[in-house]
């Protein structure tokens, strides 16, 4: 193959650098590049960009604590455990739709008095969350639950008065990496407490966020948590770091919501 013009060569430069062109095209490219300084310069610059970006990302190493847990997992494999016990695998052992659908979840609620600077006792809050979670995951999903008016309609309900939640997305975990887009909402009932699940598109999947009014949780504990404070929560076997941010306590654990994704986006 003979390339007569630079405009024929330029679109193929990256594939050429990737060594992904067939032999004939590669030969034609090599011939053009050997006689065309501008294209050669362009190729070298593109390679520098590619190398630079790649190196910047390859510099990331596994955090020590993650490595230690991985070591423990590998040790347990040697011991012959068919299913090693892992703190982060608990959700996969949950039953029913919750295991498939509710995989990334945040619990939020209003704080009526966030003025105090003392941290709330995590263990008592954990118990409240754990109880709420156990009831919540037992609920079956219903496509008809999707709120027709979207987030604005949901938040207009009196029981959500004062809830400060941005319609374009919510503040995820401190280290979250991806753009977040609001998709929809549906009512949720946790025990006697009415709440709402909100769905956000993140990482190409749907994230469920369960929001409960603080009236369903111990006020004496909630009111002790200052803005920005963090606490370790555990509910339904899930461990997470929660943070008080903008009037919400948000705790995020992992997993994606397959069922909700189908319900809301289809």
């Amino acid at each position, binding site marked *: 193959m003979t390339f007569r013009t630079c*405009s024929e060569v*330029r*679109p193929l430069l*990256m*594939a050429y650098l*990737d*060594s*992904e062109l067939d032999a004939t095209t590669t030969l034609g490219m090599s011939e053009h590049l050997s006689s065309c300084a501008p294209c050669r*310069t*362009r190729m070298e*610059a*593109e390679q*520098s*960009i*590619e190398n*630079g*970006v*790649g190196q*910047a*990302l*390859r510099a*990331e*190493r*596994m955090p020590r604590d*993650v*490595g230690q*847990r*991985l070591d423990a*997992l*590998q040790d347990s*494999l*040697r011991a012959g455990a068919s*299913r*090693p016990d*892992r703190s*982060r*695998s608990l959700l*996969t052992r949950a039953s029913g739709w919750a295991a498939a659908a509710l*995989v*990334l979840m945040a619990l939020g609620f209003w704080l009526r008095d966030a003025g105090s600077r003392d941290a709330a006792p995590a263990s008592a809050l954990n118990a409240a969350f754990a109880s709420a979670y156990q009831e919540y995951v037992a609920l079956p999903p219903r496509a008809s639950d999707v709120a027709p008016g979207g987030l604005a309609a949901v938040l207009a309900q009196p029981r959500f008065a004062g809830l400060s939640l941005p319609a374009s997305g919510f503040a*995820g*975990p401190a*280290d*979250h*990496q*991806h*753009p977040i887009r609001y998709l929809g909402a549906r009512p949720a009932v946790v025990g006697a407490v009415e709440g709402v699940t909100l769905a956000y598109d993140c*990482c*190409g*999947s*749907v*994230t469920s966020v369960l929001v409960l009014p603080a009236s369903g949780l111990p006020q004496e504990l909630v009111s002790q948590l200052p803005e920005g404070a963090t606490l370790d929560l555990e509910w339904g076997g899930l461990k997470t770091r929660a943070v008080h941010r903008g009037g919400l306590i948000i705790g*995020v*654990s*992992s*997993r*994606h919501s*397959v069922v909700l*994704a*189908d319900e809301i986006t289809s």
Partner: protein
Amino acid sequence: MNPDVTRPEDRHAEFCALLAPERDALWRFARRMSWDASSAEDALQDAILVAWRKFDVFTPGTSFRAWTFRILSNTILNANNQLRRNLARQVLSENLDLVSALEKEDAYDKVLEDPEALLAQVGDEVRGAVKSLPPAERMVFLLRSVEGFAYKEISAALEIPMGTVMSHLFRARARLREFLAEYVQQTGFVRTPTS
């Protein structure tokens, strides 16, 4: 698995020895494709468990790296049907230069003048630009440009046609170069003269 290795402890040692040099790369990939560190760790641990269970059928002499990345990709995709659909969606492969918008061409020319210096100045923002790529494009880009997989290996790992691999990769690269061009436009990046 090596048929000569029959004792369970040897089998385990072989698995761990093969896995050791790949752990950081697997972590990076899981982390860039996950919501947070916790979900990345979940995916990685799940993938390692699957790899261990299937180690009997791993073919000696083939790439353990490609094999484990394939398992990790599947783990991520199995938990994420929407990403699987987006990944498989056929998009037209543009026969265009990476940055062709007229208003950005001048800025991109500046990028190409001294890309190393620019990248050194941009620093962590490049990582942010990669994070902001659409997930399907990000996944393919990470496998090719960061971990160095061939198109064919990516196609096999993600179970998508080669043409789809190429189009996702093209788009990812184009977006990153647009990001660099915009950076130059906004900051007025000036080459530092070399002595």
